[in-house]
């Protein structure tokens, strides 16, 4: 016991850790915690009932009698309750979000399970969720795989040409997502270099990558892999530099193939880094947004982040409650998605001690 007791072992580092972490912690509360809390509160409120009145409106094209918002009355309401009308989980369960009532109705009304799924995926939130998840599930593993392959290959080329090659490889990450997606968007236009060639190749002059939903999804996913792979590559490449040479050399002498060396020595060594990259890219991919704007793909692909954007700016009436509710659900979504990886890391951390 004595100096090695768990108590003394933990107490000092914890205290040091606390002071070390305090500034970061405060900044995180201020810039991340409080905004999330405020968004959370916002999501439980809806606008006051609009007080409207009939008035005469005249413009260069003539006069009509129609309605306007009665500002005097509205101001009174707003001053009494600045946050708006308390709505509880009303916004969360409405048709544009979780749509609980609609789903119950579909369940009772539709005869086949397929029909039910069709109806549900026609709802805006589920439509966006499906695209977001599809994007995550296709992009993340491919980014890991491609990043790892590139890192391995670059690690094997002669040192002299490595510098320029690395620069070329991380270019997709340097290019701003919006610009990158716009460039690709023009290239896949039916008169663009890729679009026209695909038409020739398929011998179908009516083929358009932008008009079909499936092809748009594929394009955005390919773009996502292209854009995110350099990040995985950079981290993997750095990790590869730390792989000890002795076991690798020993394995070569034992006659292990390149594949066996990677599987049994390199991969276990960089495993924590793989988890890290997987976590970060899952989080990034769940927030997919720019390519949808860049590809003008709003018609075929909507993500959760795009829904928030749509509520905030795409309409002349700003829907704060809707945007806040979708934001909160995005946070929950990320937490659920990351849970398995986090739990696993935590378990490993415990057993390592």
């Amino acid at each position, binding site marked *: 016991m004595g100096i090695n007791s768990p108590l003394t072992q933990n107490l000092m580092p914890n205290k040091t850790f606390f002071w070390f972490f305090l500034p970061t912690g405060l900044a995180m509360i201020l810039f991340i915690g409080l905004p999330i809390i405020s968004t959370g509160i916002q999501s439980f409120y809806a606008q006051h009932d*609009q007080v409207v009145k009939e008035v005469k409106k*005249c*413009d260069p094209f003539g006069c009509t009698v129609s309605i306007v918002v009665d500002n005097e009355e509205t101001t009174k309401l707003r001053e009494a309750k600045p946050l708006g009308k308390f709505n509880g989980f009303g*916004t969360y369960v409405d048709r544009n979000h979780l749509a609980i009532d609609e789903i119950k109705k579909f369940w009772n009304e539709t005869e086949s399970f397929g029909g039910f799924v069709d109806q549900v995926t026609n709802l805006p939130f589920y439509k966006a969720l499906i695209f977001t998840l599809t994007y995550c599930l296709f992009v993340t593993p491919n980014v890991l795989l491609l990043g790892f392959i590139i890192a391995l290959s670059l690690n094997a080329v002669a040192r002299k040409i490595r510098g320029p090659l690395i620069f070329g490889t991380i270019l997709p990450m340097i290019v701003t997502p919006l610009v990158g997606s716009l460039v690709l968007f023009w290239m896949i236009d039916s008169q663009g270099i890729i679009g026209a060639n695909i038409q020739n190749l398929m011998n179908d002059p009516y083929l358009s990558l932008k008009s079909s939903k499936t092809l748009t999804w594929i394009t955005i996913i390919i773009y996502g892999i292209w854009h995110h792979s350099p990040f995985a590559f950079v981290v993997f490449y750095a990790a590869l530099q730390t792989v000890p040479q002795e076991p690798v050399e020993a394995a070569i002498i034992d006659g292990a193939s390149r594949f066996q060396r990677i599987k049994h020595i390199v991969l276990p060594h960089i495993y924590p880094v793989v988890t890290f990259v997987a976590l970060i890219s899952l989080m990034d991919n769940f927030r997919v947004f720019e390519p949808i704007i860049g590809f003008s793909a709003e018609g075929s692909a909507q993500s959760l982040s795009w829904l928030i954007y749509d509520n905030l700016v795409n*309409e002349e*009436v700003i829907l704060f409650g809707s945007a806040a509710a979708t934001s909160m659900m995005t946070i929950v979504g990320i937490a659920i998605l990351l849970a398995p990886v986090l739990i696993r890391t935590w378990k490993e951390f415990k057993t390592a001690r």
Partner: protein
Amino acid sequence: MRKILVTLLFLLFGTSAFADCNIKSGSINILANDFPALRTFVETSKQCKGSADFKVTHSSEHNKIAVPALTANPSEFSARIAANSSIVPLMNQDLIRPLDDLVNKYGEGIQDSQLITIDGKVMAVAFMANTQHLYYREDVLKDLGIAVPKTYEEVVAASEKIRASGKMQYPYAAAYKAGWNLAEEFVNMFIGHGGEFFKAGGAQPNINNAKGVATLNMLKKLSELSNPDYLTHDSEAIKVEWESGNVALMTLWASRSGTLLDDEGDPNITKATKLTGPATVGGGNIPAATLWWDGFTLAKNRSDADAEATFRALAHAASNKKMVADAADQAVWLVEGFVPGPKSIGVIEAVKMGAKPYPMLPQMGLMHGALGSEIVEFLQGKESAEQALKDVEAAYISKAKEQGFL
């Protein structure tokens, strides 16, 4: 209606319309959309700035900035150039000030027909009119012996004929980009069918009916004659399609005719590009188009001195005969002294045919937003017209409830 005809068709004999430009103080900061006519307008008002500060932001993203920027106190902008639709959120949030006092004091050259009055108060001063109307390629139609279409049914027939002739694969174009543009096309076509968006006297939606279905079916027919990428095409994109000679019939904003008919691009195409009024649809007699005005509004959360300086500068442009004479090609000006040229024909025809203005209702923005995203799947052939309209209404109702309209 008659007022605009008077404005457009006759030369009015007025007194000299130059505003007094002796502005001594205040600061002017204008938020405006970005197209040539608005740039001309703002430049003209700048001539009058005197010793006031003068700043302007031209942005096609103006709708996204306007409400937050004017909500701040003091507001970032002292004036916002708005239109029928974009004045509504400003009114809903009580962000613009009545202009009666300023009009009385400094509004000499401004005609009564330019004043946008709501509940007896002047809330904006309009200076140009706009609409979407048909453009056609005279050479192509002549070669195939097709008469200039007057209805969308004729547009469909003409486009099919052009396609069959092998001249063009996608002879029709309109801004069908998912979102605001597509919704605007629906609004036009629905009004052309005689539809009303809301049940009388309330905010309950009223589009899931035979008129709505007919509207969607016509949009679908037209989309099938358009470039397959139509869901990504905005006004600028179809303008490019036109200038590349891929299109023979097009529905486009009147305010774009200036750049469409300028010296850039293939002179043969420019020469053969002709303008005509908007088409009607489904046997209706009013055009499937909406009339728009562009005008200026002043921010409420700004000092009186700034409001005064801003109003005087903008009123100078809104009553400037020289500007409307020099820039007669850029827009259909509502300003005294404007002589309509060949490029104004679309708007003038629309007014003559009795086109309706875009509905200036507090909840219209929500309907427009719901339309822009929910009718896409119908055009892609993934759901029925009835289902799409049901979705629009459901999406609208949720939003309207959250916003307190229902």
